[in-house]
Protein backbone atom coordinates (compact mmCIF):
# COMPACT_ATOMS: atom_id res chain seq x y z
CA UNK A 1 0.00 0.00 0.00
CA UNK A 2 1.35 3.43 -0.94
CA UNK A 3 1.72 6.11 1.77
CA UNK A 4 -1.21 8.49 2.15
CA UNK A 5 -0.63 11.98 0.73
CA UNK A 6 -2.53 14.26 3.11
CA UNK A 7 -1.63 17.52 1.42
CA UNK A 8 -4.97 18.02 -0.41
CA UNK A 9 -6.79 17.29 2.84
CA UNK A 10 -4.85 19.76 5.00
CA UNK A 11 -5.00 22.39 2.24
CA UNK A 12 -8.78 22.03 1.97
CA UNK A 13 -9.09 22.28 5.77
CA UNK A 14 -7.04 25.47 5.89
CA UNK A 15 -9.10 27.08 3.10
CA UNK A 16 -12.34 26.18 4.91
CA UNK A 17 -11.02 27.55 8.22
CA UNK A 18 -10.02 30.87 6.65
CA UNK A 19 -13.44 31.16 4.97
CA UNK A 20 -15.35 30.26 8.16
CA UNK A 21 -13.33 32.73 10.24
CA UNK A 22 -13.82 35.41 7.56
CA UNK A 23 -17.58 34.89 7.34
CA UNK A 24 -18.06 34.83 11.12
CA UNK A 25 -15.85 37.89 11.62
CA UNK A 26 -17.69 39.78 8.87
CA UNK A 27 -21.05 38.87 10.42
CA UNK A 28 -19.88 40.11 13.83
CA UNK A 29 -18.51 43.31 12.28
CA UNK A 30 -21.75 43.89 10.33
CA UNK A 31 -23.71 43.68 13.58
CA UNK A 32 -21.29 45.91 15.46
CA UNK A 33 -21.39 48.53 12.68
CA UNK A 34 -25.22 48.39 12.63
CA UNK A 35 -25.27 47.35 8.98
CA UNK A 36 -28.58 45.81 7.77
CA UNK A 37 -29.50 42.83 9.97
CA UNK A 38 -30.25 40.79 6.86
CA UNK A 39 -26.61 41.08 5.75
CA UNK A 40 -25.29 39.74 9.07
CA UNK A 41 -27.85 36.93 8.95
CA UNK A 42 -26.86 35.94 5.43
CA UNK A 43 -23.16 35.88 6.37
CA UNK A 44 -23.93 33.73 9.41
CA UNK A 45 -26.09 31.35 7.40
CA UNK A 46 -23.28 31.00 4.86
CA UNK A 47 -20.82 30.34 7.72
CA UNK A 48 -23.04 27.66 9.28
CA UNK A 49 -23.62 26.00 5.90
CA UNK A 50 -19.88 26.00 5.23
CA UNK A 51 -19.13 24.52 8.69
CA UNK A 52 -21.56 21.66 8.08
CA UNK A 53 -20.58 21.01 4.46
CA UNK A 54 -16.86 21.15 5.31
CA UNK A 55 -16.96 17.85 7.23
CA UNK A 56 -18.70 16.19 4.30
CA UNK A 57 -16.09 17.57 1.90
CA UNK A 58 -13.17 16.63 4.15
CA UNK A 59 -14.36 13.08 4.72
CA UNK A 60 -15.08 12.65 1.00
CA UNK A 61 -11.55 13.92 0.23
CA UNK A 62 -10.10 11.44 2.73
CA UNK A 63 -12.15 8.67 1.11
CA UNK A 64 -10.73 9.55 -2.31
CA UNK A 65 -7.19 9.71 -0.91
CA UNK A 66 -7.60 6.28 0.68
CA UNK A 67 -8.95 4.98 -2.64
CA UNK A 68 -5.85 6.30 -4.43
CA UNK A 69 -3.55 4.37 -2.09
CA UNK A 70 -5.74 1.24 -2.26
CA UNK A 71 -6.88 1.22 1.39
CA UNK A 72 -10.40 -0.09 0.74
CA UNK A 73 -11.43 -0.46 4.39
CA UNK A 74 -10.60 3.13 5.30
CA UNK A 75 -12.17 4.37 2.06
CA UNK A 76 -15.45 2.65 2.94
CA UNK A 77 -15.45 4.09 6.49
CA UNK A 78 -14.72 7.61 5.16
CA UNK A 79 -17.54 7.47 2.62
CA UNK A 80 -19.69 5.83 5.32
CA UNK A 81 -19.37 9.01 7.40
CA UNK A 82 -20.44 11.08 4.38
CA UNK A 83 -23.44 8.77 3.85
CA UNK A 84 -24.44 9.01 7.54
CA UNK A 85 -24.31 12.82 7.47
CA UNK A 86 -26.34 13.03 4.26
CA UNK A 87 -28.87 10.59 5.76
CA UNK A 88 -29.09 12.83 8.85
CA UNK A 89 -29.94 15.83 6.65
CA UNK A 90 -32.61 13.91 4.73
CA UNK A 91 -34.15 12.29 7.84
CA UNK A 92 -34.25 15.55 9.79
CA UNK A 93 -35.73 17.49 6.90
CA UNK A 94 -38.37 14.80 6.34
CA UNK A 95 -39.44 13.94 9.87
CA UNK A 96 -38.27 16.53 12.39
CA UNK A 97 -40.64 19.14 13.72
CA UNK A 98 -39.55 22.48 15.19
CA UNK A 99 -37.29 22.82 18.27
Amino acid at each position, binding site marked *: MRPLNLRPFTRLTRIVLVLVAGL*MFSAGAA*KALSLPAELARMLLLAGVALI*LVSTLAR*MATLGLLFRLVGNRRMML*FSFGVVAILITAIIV*TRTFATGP
Partner: protein
Amino acid sequence: MIEPLTLFALSVGIGVFAGLLGLGGGVLIIPLLTLSYGASISTAVAVSLLAVIPTSMAASTVYLESGKIDFETVIPMCFFAATGGVIGGLIAGFVPVAWLELLFAVILAYSAVATLLKKDGNGDSAHDPNRFWRRLKDPVTFLAGILTGLVGLGGGVILIPLMYLGLGLPIRMAMASSAFIVGVSATAGATVFVMRGGLTEVFSFLPSVVTGMLLGAFLGGKLGVRAAPAALKALFAVVLVYFSYRMALTGAGRLGWM
Protein backbone atom coordinates in the same frame (compact mmCIF):
# COMPACT_ATOMS: atom_id res chain seq x y z
CA MET B 1 -26.77 41.87 27.14
CA ILE B 2 -24.20 40.09 25.00
CA GLU B 3 -20.73 41.58 25.07
CA PRO B 4 -19.10 40.18 21.92
CA LEU B 5 -15.50 41.07 22.81
CA THR B 6 -15.66 39.47 26.28
CA LEU B 7 -17.27 36.37 24.81
CA PHE B 8 -14.57 36.30 22.10
CA ALA B 9 -11.76 36.50 24.71
CA LEU B 10 -13.33 33.74 26.83
CA SER B 11 -13.82 31.62 23.71
CA VAL B 12 -10.12 31.96 22.84
CA GLY B 13 -9.27 30.56 26.29
CA ILE B 14 -11.74 27.69 25.89
CA GLY B 15 -10.36 26.99 22.39
CA VAL B 16 -6.76 26.77 23.71
CA PHE B 17 -7.93 24.32 26.37
CA ALA B 18 -9.95 22.26 23.88
CA GLY B 19 -7.16 22.20 21.27
CA LEU B 20 -4.51 21.30 23.85
CA LEU B 21 -6.43 18.36 25.29
CA GLY B 22 -8.29 17.23 22.15
CA LEU B 23 -11.72 17.98 23.61
CA GLY B 24 -14.68 19.72 22.04
CA GLY B 25 -14.96 22.41 24.70
CA GLY B 26 -18.71 21.98 25.17
CA VAL B 27 -18.35 21.44 28.90
CA LEU B 28 -17.09 25.02 29.25
CA ILE B 29 -18.99 26.84 26.52
CA ILE B 30 -22.44 25.50 27.50
CA PRO B 31 -22.31 26.68 31.16
CA LEU B 32 -20.74 29.97 30.02
CA LEU B 33 -23.59 30.73 27.61
CA THR B 34 -26.40 29.55 29.90
CA LEU B 35 -25.15 31.02 33.18
CA SER B 36 -23.42 34.23 32.07
CA TYR B 37 -25.29 35.11 28.88
CA GLY B 38 -28.77 33.79 29.66
CA ALA B 39 -28.96 31.45 26.66
CA SER B 40 -31.39 28.53 26.69
CA ILE B 41 -29.82 25.10 26.98
CA SER B 42 -30.81 24.11 23.42
CA THR B 43 -29.22 27.31 22.06
CA ALA B 44 -26.03 26.69 24.07
CA VAL B 45 -25.83 23.08 22.83
CA ALA B 46 -26.33 24.21 19.20
CA VAL B 47 -23.66 26.94 19.51
CA SER B 48 -21.31 24.46 21.18
CA LEU B 49 -21.80 21.84 18.46
CA LEU B 50 -21.30 24.37 15.65
CA ALA B 51 -18.19 25.84 17.32
CA VAL B 52 -16.64 22.44 17.99
CA ILE B 53 -16.42 21.64 14.25
CA PRO B 54 -13.96 24.43 13.23
CA THR B 55 -12.20 24.04 16.61
CA SER B 56 -11.59 20.39 15.83
CA MET B 57 -10.47 21.21 12.29
CA ALA B 58 -7.95 23.80 13.49
CA ALA B 59 -6.44 21.60 16.21
CA SER B 60 -6.41 18.41 14.16
CA THR B 61 -4.68 20.13 11.22
CA VAL B 62 -1.77 21.03 13.51
CA TYR B 63 -1.67 17.48 14.91
CA LEU B 64 -1.98 15.98 11.44
CA GLU B 65 1.04 17.87 10.17
CA SER B 66 3.10 16.62 13.12
CA GLY B 67 2.02 13.01 12.46
CA LYS B 68 0.12 12.60 15.73
CA ILE B 69 -3.12 11.18 14.28
CA ASP B 70 -3.48 7.43 13.80
CA PHE B 71 -5.93 7.19 10.87
CA GLU B 72 -6.32 3.38 11.10
CA THR B 73 -7.87 3.91 14.55
CA VAL B 74 -9.56 7.25 13.92
CA ILE B 75 -11.55 6.73 10.71
CA PRO B 76 -13.66 3.74 11.90
CA MET B 77 -14.25 5.61 15.18
CA CYS B 78 -15.43 8.65 13.19
CA PHE B 79 -18.03 6.46 11.49
CA PHE B 80 -19.44 5.12 14.76
CA ALA B 81 -19.26 8.52 16.48
CA ALA B 82 -21.13 10.15 13.57
CA THR B 83 -23.81 7.45 13.61
CA GLY B 84 -24.22 7.92 17.37
CA GLY B 85 -24.25 11.70 16.98
CA VAL B 86 -27.08 11.59 14.44
CA ILE B 87 -29.15 9.21 16.57
CA GLY B 88 -28.43 11.29 19.71
CA GLY B 89 -29.49 14.47 17.93
CA LEU B 90 -32.71 12.85 16.66
CA ILE B 91 -33.75 11.44 20.04
CA ALA B 92 -32.67 14.52 22.05
CA GLY B 93 -35.61 15.65 24.14
CA PHE B 94 -37.38 12.31 23.88
CA VAL B 95 -35.19 10.10 26.10
CA PRO B 96 -34.21 10.50 29.75
CA VAL B 97 -30.43 11.00 29.77
CA ALA B 98 -30.01 10.98 33.57
CA TRP B 99 -28.94 7.32 33.86
CA LEU B 100 -26.58 7.65 30.91
CA GLU B 101 -24.97 10.67 32.60
CA LEU B 102 -24.61 8.80 35.90
CA LEU B 103 -23.06 5.82 34.12
CA PHE B 104 -20.55 8.05 32.36
CA ALA B 105 -19.82 9.91 35.63
CA VAL B 106 -18.66 6.61 37.17
CA ILE B 107 -16.66 5.65 34.04
CA LEU B 108 -14.95 9.06 33.94
CA ALA B 109 -14.04 8.95 37.64
CA TYR B 110 -12.49 5.52 37.09
CA SER B 111 -10.67 6.79 33.96
CA ALA B 112 -9.21 9.72 35.92
CA VAL B 113 -7.69 7.39 38.50
CA ALA B 114 -6.53 4.89 35.84
CA THR B 115 -4.93 7.68 33.76
CA LEU B 116 -2.94 8.91 36.74
CA LEU B 117 -1.95 5.42 37.87
CA LYS B 118 -0.99 4.06 34.44
CA LYS B 119 2.73 3.38 34.43
CA ASP B 120 4.07 4.15 30.97
CA GLY B 121 7.21 6.10 31.56
CA ASN B 122 6.78 9.57 30.09
CA GLY B 123 3.39 8.68 28.57
CA ASP B 124 4.64 9.05 25.02
CA SER B 125 5.07 5.40 24.10
CA ALA B 126 2.50 3.04 22.56
CA HIS B 127 1.35 -0.14 24.33
CA ASP B 128 -0.35 -3.32 23.19
CA PRO B 129 -4.09 -2.76 22.97
CA ASN B 130 -6.25 -4.40 25.60
CA ARG B 131 -8.23 -7.16 23.80
CA PHE B 132 -11.40 -6.41 25.76
CA TRP B 133 -11.36 -2.71 24.86
CA ARG B 134 -10.40 -3.41 21.26
CA ARG B 135 -13.65 -5.35 20.89
CA LEU B 136 -15.66 -2.71 22.72
CA LYS B 137 -14.07 0.23 20.87
CA ASP B 138 -16.86 0.66 18.33
CA PRO B 139 -19.87 0.33 20.71
CA VAL B 140 -18.25 2.76 23.19
CA THR B 141 -17.53 5.26 20.40
CA PHE B 142 -21.14 4.91 19.26
CA LEU B 143 -22.36 5.65 22.83
CA ALA B 144 -20.03 8.65 23.08
CA GLY B 145 -21.52 9.92 19.81
CA ILE B 146 -25.05 9.51 21.19
CA LEU B 147 -24.09 11.46 24.31
CA THR B 148 -22.61 14.24 22.16
CA GLY B 149 -25.82 14.48 20.13
CA LEU B 150 -28.00 14.36 23.25
CA VAL B 151 -26.31 16.86 25.53
CA GLY B 152 -23.64 18.49 23.34
CA LEU B 153 -20.68 17.27 25.38
CA GLY B 154 -18.82 14.14 26.37
CA GLY B 155 -17.19 13.05 23.11
CA GLY B 156 -13.54 13.76 23.88
CA VAL B 157 -13.52 12.81 27.56
CA ILE B 158 -14.79 9.34 26.69
CA LEU B 159 -12.70 8.79 23.57
CA ILE B 160 -9.33 9.83 25.03
CA PRO B 161 -9.38 7.32 27.95
CA LEU B 162 -10.65 4.66 25.52
CA MET B 163 -7.70 5.24 23.18
CA TYR B 164 -5.08 5.81 25.91
CA LEU B 165 -6.10 3.20 28.49
CA GLY B 166 -7.86 0.68 26.27
CA LEU B 167 -6.19 0.84 22.87
CA GLY B 168 -2.67 1.64 24.10
CA LEU B 169 -2.11 4.85 22.11
CA PRO B 170 0.32 7.40 23.62
CA ILE B 171 -1.56 10.15 25.50
CA ARG B 172 -0.65 12.85 22.97
CA MET B 173 -1.75 10.71 20.05
CA ALA B 174 -5.02 9.85 21.85
CA MET B 175 -5.72 13.56 22.35
CA ALA B 176 -4.83 14.42 18.75
CA SER B 177 -7.03 11.60 17.41
CA SER B 178 -9.88 12.71 19.69
CA ALA B 179 -9.58 16.27 18.35
CA PHE B 180 -10.29 14.86 14.89
CA ILE B 181 -13.20 12.60 15.92
CA VAL B 182 -15.13 15.17 18.01
CA GLY B 183 -15.43 17.39 14.93
CA VAL B 184 -17.15 14.61 12.98
CA SER B 185 -19.55 13.61 15.78
CA ALA B 186 -20.34 17.29 16.42
CA THR B 187 -21.18 17.71 12.72
CA ALA B 188 -23.70 14.89 13.02
CA GLY B 189 -25.34 16.48 16.08
CA ALA B 190 -25.17 20.02 14.65
CA THR B 191 -26.75 18.93 11.35
CA VAL B 192 -29.82 17.70 13.23
CA PHE B 193 -30.03 20.92 15.29
CA VAL B 194 -29.63 23.18 12.25
CA MET B 195 -32.13 21.30 10.09
CA ARG B 196 -34.72 21.62 12.85
CA GLY B 197 -34.46 25.41 12.52
CA GLY B 198 -34.78 28.06 15.24
CA LEU B 199 -31.31 29.55 14.82
CA THR B 200 -32.12 33.17 15.65
CA GLU B 201 -30.75 33.07 19.20
CA VAL B 202 -27.81 30.90 18.09
CA PHE B 203 -26.75 33.63 15.64
CA SER B 204 -26.23 36.21 18.39
CA PHE B 205 -23.45 34.10 19.97
CA LEU B 206 -21.95 32.35 16.97
CA PRO B 207 -19.52 34.99 15.54
CA SER B 208 -17.67 35.57 18.83
CA VAL B 209 -17.63 31.92 19.91
CA VAL B 210 -16.57 30.43 16.55
CA THR B 211 -13.82 32.95 15.77
CA GLY B 212 -12.53 32.85 19.38
CA MET B 213 -12.50 29.07 19.69
CA LEU B 214 -11.00 28.64 16.23
CA LEU B 215 -8.08 30.90 17.07
CA GLY B 216 -7.68 29.31 20.52
CA ALA B 217 -7.74 25.76 19.14
CA PHE B 218 -4.99 26.57 16.66
CA LEU B 219 -2.80 27.86 19.50
CA GLY B 220 -3.84 24.91 21.70
CA GLY B 221 -2.82 22.46 18.98
CA LYS B 222 0.61 24.10 18.72
CA LEU B 223 0.97 23.90 22.51
CA GLY B 224 -0.22 20.28 22.55
CA VAL B 225 2.49 19.17 20.12
CA ARG B 226 5.18 20.62 22.42
CA ALA B 227 3.68 19.94 25.88
CA ALA B 228 5.18 17.28 28.15
CA PRO B 229 3.01 14.12 28.10
CA ALA B 230 3.14 13.83 31.91
CA ALA B 231 1.69 17.35 32.23
CA LEU B 232 -1.01 16.53 29.66
CA LYS B 233 -1.88 13.38 31.63
CA ALA B 234 -2.21 15.28 34.92
CA LEU B 235 -4.26 18.08 33.35
CA PHE B 236 -6.50 15.58 31.62
CA ALA B 237 -7.10 13.66 34.89
CA VAL B 238 -8.27 16.92 36.49
CA VAL B 239 -10.63 17.52 33.56
CA LEU B 240 -12.01 13.98 33.89
CA VAL B 241 -12.74 14.51 37.59
CA TYR B 242 -14.52 17.78 36.78
CA PHE B 243 -16.56 16.12 33.99
CA SER B 244 -17.44 13.23 36.27
CA TYR B 245 -18.61 15.61 39.00
CA ARG B 246 -20.63 17.69 36.55
CA MET B 247 -22.27 14.70 34.91
CA ALA B 248 -23.13 13.15 38.29
CA LEU B 249 -24.58 16.48 39.42
CA THR B 250 -26.76 17.03 36.35
CA GLY B 251 -27.80 13.35 36.25
CA ALA B 252 -28.80 13.40 39.93
CA GLY B 253 -30.57 16.73 39.37
CA ARG B 254 -32.61 15.29 36.50
CA LEU B 255 -33.65 12.32 38.68
CA GLY B 256 -34.73 14.70 41.44
CA TRP B 257 -32.12 13.43 43.91
CA MET B 258 -30.75 16.93 44.50
